[in-house]
């Protein structure tokens, strides 16, 4: 079955976890034992309603503080498709976890508390979703029950958000506005009986009708070699398969390809999946291939179609989202992981910090603090084979690993 990945976004207490709990409840995805546990905990806390956030806030610290700290992945399915929802934290301190949740998603739901309207975290999260090139964004104006389900208030917030959209340079993006009450269930799965002034679809209806073919950002075919399969058994004595995942486009037997970095030209001889041979494989399939010529290929190399070469360079500029409490400094060195390829990288220059309020203001800074986003240029010890992130959502991204702590300290989107 088809799988659609969705990430939530929005400020602390806007109701992200509650909304997901409501989706589960109204689609009958909560099993009796889970529901019982929610009823029990809600009662214990003295609530006269069901606190659905208890379904997703899985850590003790989260339940104690009533906030989400780390992403939870929640699963449910309808007759149409399977959904994976990343319940992300709204707190600024945990932005890195929000980015983690959003990076694998195709759809974002940005929540806004109807009482507070568009606030700093709203545009920060919208900005990050745009940085990640999330194509379908749903703006859910939540807690409508607390503003008397007012159409006027909804329109005000919608207009404010539209001003942000105007400043964004992401043209293919599709934005949908829905007034909801996560707590009471209005316009989540069931149409609101109070907000009759709203003619649009409910949240679930919108998700069910999404065209999942066009939601992916396609690009050119990229085949990064993950692993070389050499059985060395009698039966497969000379077998040499290059294992990897296909990104961007389709791969076919007979395709004229180039192996990078050696730039050797050859053709795809065979495509295997679990011992069976195939004529072609679609994007996202984990296959292994063999090549016509005897070429030297190892992990980190990339196979591309002959007329679709990526950029192959040792310097580039990228937007970096910093996720580590130890600041990024000019001159510091990191391990740069681009797909499955690792190289060493030195920070050449921090051009400017990018404000996430769409103001377009660029601030000069000498270092990057946690949760900062900036334009940074790098110098590598070896060239990598990349595309601009805008053209290729997988081949244009990388992570920075701190060689001292081994932590993933930042993520970059190549310009």
């Amino acid at each position, binding site marked *: 079955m*088809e*799988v659609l990945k969705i990430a939530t976004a929005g400020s602390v207490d806007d109701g992200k976890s509650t909304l997901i709990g409501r989706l589960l409840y109204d689609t009958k995805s909560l*099993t*009796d*034992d*889970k529901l019982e*546990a929610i009823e029990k*905990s809600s009662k214990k806390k003295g609530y006269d309603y069901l606190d659905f956030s208890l379904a*997703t*806030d*899985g*850590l*003790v*610290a989260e339940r104690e503080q009533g906030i989400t*700290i*780390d*992403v*939870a*992945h*929640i*699963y449910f*399915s309808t007759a149409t498709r*399977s959904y*994976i929802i990343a319940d992300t934290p709204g707190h600024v301190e945990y932005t*890195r*976890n929000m*980015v*983690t949740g959003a*990076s*694998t998603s195709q759809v974002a739901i940005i929540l806004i508390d109807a009482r507070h309207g568009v606030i700093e975290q709203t545009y920060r999260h919208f900005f990050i979703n745009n940085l990640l090139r999330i194509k379908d964004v749903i703006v859910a104006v939540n807690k409508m029950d607390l503003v008397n389900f007012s159409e006027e208030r909804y329109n005000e917030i919608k207009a404010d958000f539209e001003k942000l959209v105007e400043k964004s340079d992401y043209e293919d993006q599709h934005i949908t506005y829905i007034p909801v009450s996560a707590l009471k269930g209005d316009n989540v799965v069931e149409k609101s009986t109070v907000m009759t002034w709203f003619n649009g679809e409910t949240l679930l209806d919108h998700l069910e009708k999404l065209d999942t073919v066009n939601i992916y950002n396609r690009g050119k075919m990229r085949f990064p070699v*993950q*692993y070389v*399969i050499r*059985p060395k*058994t009698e039966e497969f004595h000379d*077998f040499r*398969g290059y*294992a990897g*995942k296909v990104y961007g486009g389709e791969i076919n037997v007979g395709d004229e390809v180039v192996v990078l970095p050696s730039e050797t030209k050859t053709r795809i001889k065979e495509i295997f*999946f*679990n*011992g069976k041979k*195939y*004529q072609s*494989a679609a994007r*996202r*399939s*984990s296959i292994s291939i063999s090549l016509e010529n005897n070429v030297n290929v190892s*992990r980190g190399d990339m196979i591309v179609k002959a007329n679709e070469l990526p950029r192959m360079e040792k310097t580039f500029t990228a937007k970096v989202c910093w*996720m580590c409490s130890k600041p990024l400094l000019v001159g510091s060195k990191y*391990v740069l*992981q681009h797909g*499955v390829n690792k190289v060493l990288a030195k920070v050449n220059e921090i051009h400017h910090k990018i404000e996430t309020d769409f103001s377009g203001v660029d601030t000069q800074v000498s270092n990057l603090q946690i949760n900062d986003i900036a334009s940074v240029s790098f110098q590598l010890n070896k060239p990598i084979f990349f595309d601009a992130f805008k053209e290729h*959502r997988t081949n244009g*991204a990388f*992570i920075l*690993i701190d060689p001292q702590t*081994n932590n*993933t300290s930042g*993520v970059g989107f190549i310009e």
Partner: protein
Amino acid sequence: MTEKLLINALENEAIYIFREVAAQFEKPVLLFSGGKDSITLVRLAQKAFYPAKIPFPLMHIDTGHNFPETIEFRDKLVNELGLELIVRNVQDSIDQGKVKEESGRYSSRNVLQTTTLLDAIEEFKFDACIGGARRDEEKARAKERIFSVRDDFGQWDEKNQRPELFDMLNGQIELGQNVRVFPISNWTELDVWTYIENEDLEIPSIYFAHKRDIFMRDGLIWSASEHVYKDEEEEVEERMVRFRTVGDMSCTAAVDSYATTIQEVVAEIRDSSISERGARIDDKRSEAAMEKRKQQGYF
């Protein structure tokens, strides 16, 4: 050979993860319990490396209180597929005085496994342990990364996990640390069962309905066995049951069922109004039971 490969997104993701493990680590191991999730893992690992053999051993932490059917199945599978199996016993940890056997009504060896596991990791210097945990099982598990770093003491620092972006997996660790890897993180219980059906995988017989001596406690169906503590008043009866998850006998409850084929099991799971973990006695201990166990190095 003219076919176009049709992809199963979850299967492809899992294969990708297996290959990352083989490429990034020196000494990986697949933790094999004999349950449906680890059987699925073995199948996926075979696909990831075919026609080469799975490039790492399996390891079973045997509590000594397993269902005999599971152990029988384990040995048969390992034999048929020509896999390498390491077994480490909780009984040895008890005999060495490293852990103390629980006693009384809810006694179980489930928690004791952690010590045996951590010792085995140290003994073999494993740097990556592949497990079949899924995020849909339990709400603390829903917080797990695919590559989850554990410190020298095997502990999970749940409030400070590494960001995991796109499908880039960072397996860099310090000496002494290890990574727990969860290739089927994004699968649901139904996904696993459907896969078992489609792939025609063999599974231990206790997953199918069978007659068993049981007794009732706290609304759950317990197996009557020498390994399970039972009060005098708790009456044993025979009933048609099956298991949805296969853990230690002392912490796995059965469910009423007449499903004797994989098709019937899949249909039953699809209609079930109780979650898989609803029949896990270990999770009923408290709302935070799983999180606590994970912090201490449990799977």
